[in-house]
């Protein structure tokens, strides 16, 4: 992978809109691990997660024309597709949508022991930084960003009022930005 060409997000988007397969390979290399992590968090089954990941990338490839750069980053769009597909899959397979609140640091250390974990993108460094986030901040980001919960659902899940959901989410993201800037 060392000889893989680097693209800026604009170049990548332009190439993908032209169905450039090399750019798509780059996209996959660059984002598959992060998306797989999100899916795995929701399904907790490695094989199922990889099946969904493959299907999500097929969707991304086929629907790339509908990606609108003015509406956010590429990753955000891809995450939305992936998350919706995962939730649909869980529903269709009769799984109960489980909210896994990763308040425990175990999950982080477990990942570190895993030899299939992505070592690219300085993931290890980022992971260490996350230890500094408060569990309540992590759980609220997880529920909204990974599980796709609404304010109401988060409020019920965590047993806190709506106003608290908003302020906590805000402070969690501000904290996250601080941590990542110094990582």
């Amino acid at each position, binding site marked *: 992978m060392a000889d893989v060409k680097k693209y800026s997000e604009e170049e990548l988007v332009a190439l993908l809109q032209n*169905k450039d*397969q*090399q750019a*798509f*390979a780059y996209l*996959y*290399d660059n984002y*598959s*691990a*992060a998306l*797989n*992590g*999100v899916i*795995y*968090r929701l399904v907790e089954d490695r094989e199922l*997660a*990889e099946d969904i*990941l*493959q299907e999500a*990338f*097929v969707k991304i*490839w*086929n629907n790339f024309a509908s990606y609108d750069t*003015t*509406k*956010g*980053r590429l*990753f*955000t769009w891809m995450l*939305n597709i992936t998350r919706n597909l995962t939730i649909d899959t869980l529903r269709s397979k009769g799984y109960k949508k489980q909210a896994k609140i990763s308040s425990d640091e175990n*999950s*982080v250390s477990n*990942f570190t022991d*895993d030899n*299939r*974990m*992505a070592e690219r*993108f300085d*993931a290890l460094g*980022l*992971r260490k*930084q*996350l230890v500094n986030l408060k569990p309540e901040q992590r759980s609220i*980001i997880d529920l*909204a*960003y*990974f599980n*796709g919960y*609404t*304010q109401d659902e988060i409020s019920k899940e965590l047993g806190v009022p709506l106003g608290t*959901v*908003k302020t906590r*989410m*805000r402070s969690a*993201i*501000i904290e*996250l*930005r601080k941590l*990542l800037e110094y*990582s």
Partner: protein
Amino acid sequence: MLELYCAGLTSAAETADVQQWAKQYPEVAAEIAAIEAALEGYARAQAIAPAASVKEKLFAEINKSTAAPVVNLPSVQNGSARVYSISPAWKNAAAASIVLLLGSLFANYIYYNKYNETSNKLASTQSELNQQKELAQSMDTAMSVMGNMYATPVAVKSIDSTAANMGARIYWMKNTEEVYIDPANLPKAPAGKQYEFWAIVDGAPVNGGVITGEINGKKVHIQKMKSFGKVQAFAISLEDAGPAKTKPDKVMAVGSI
């Protein structure tokens, strides 16, 4: 607000607002991008690399569904995709045939409309011609009746003081005993009433049929009635509308041969 937007916690209306702001103010767009980048970092921090086989299966899958020109996926990874190109001559030919097809469709549309217009005109001309023919035929009949050497004209005159001017002319053919009536001088029958024609045969009235005053708003000039044997006189009566009666109710006009 922007944090909530990026975490997907805004309502549809709020989301639309934020997207509008992001379009208007570059600072808002930059702030959103920074928050999204932070969340992306958060996701990356929890990345789990999928098995290598997923990528192979994925590319096999998209090449199944990709259009024909690009083939042989593994070569993409080697950096040399085989691409079948279509020669410019064929492209031009294809473009030209599409232009011709569109032109032809347009011409078809125009000619079809013209054809419809013409056939409508033809139909209306034909029906006009038929009307004229009918008119000419009825005039012919009228002329032949009136001009017939055996025709005996009989004037049927009003016996009703309230309608002194009403009447009709009967043409009785001596040789064939056919009876024609020219009802042009009969006033229009009142609503729910009709005129009926009678012949007086051996002193008794015999019904000769209902008189048709007009057809489609046009006055009838000559109407053939029933034939009788020996006839002494003719009469016209006003009856309730319906089938021809056996006895006249109100005789309006009488004329003897």
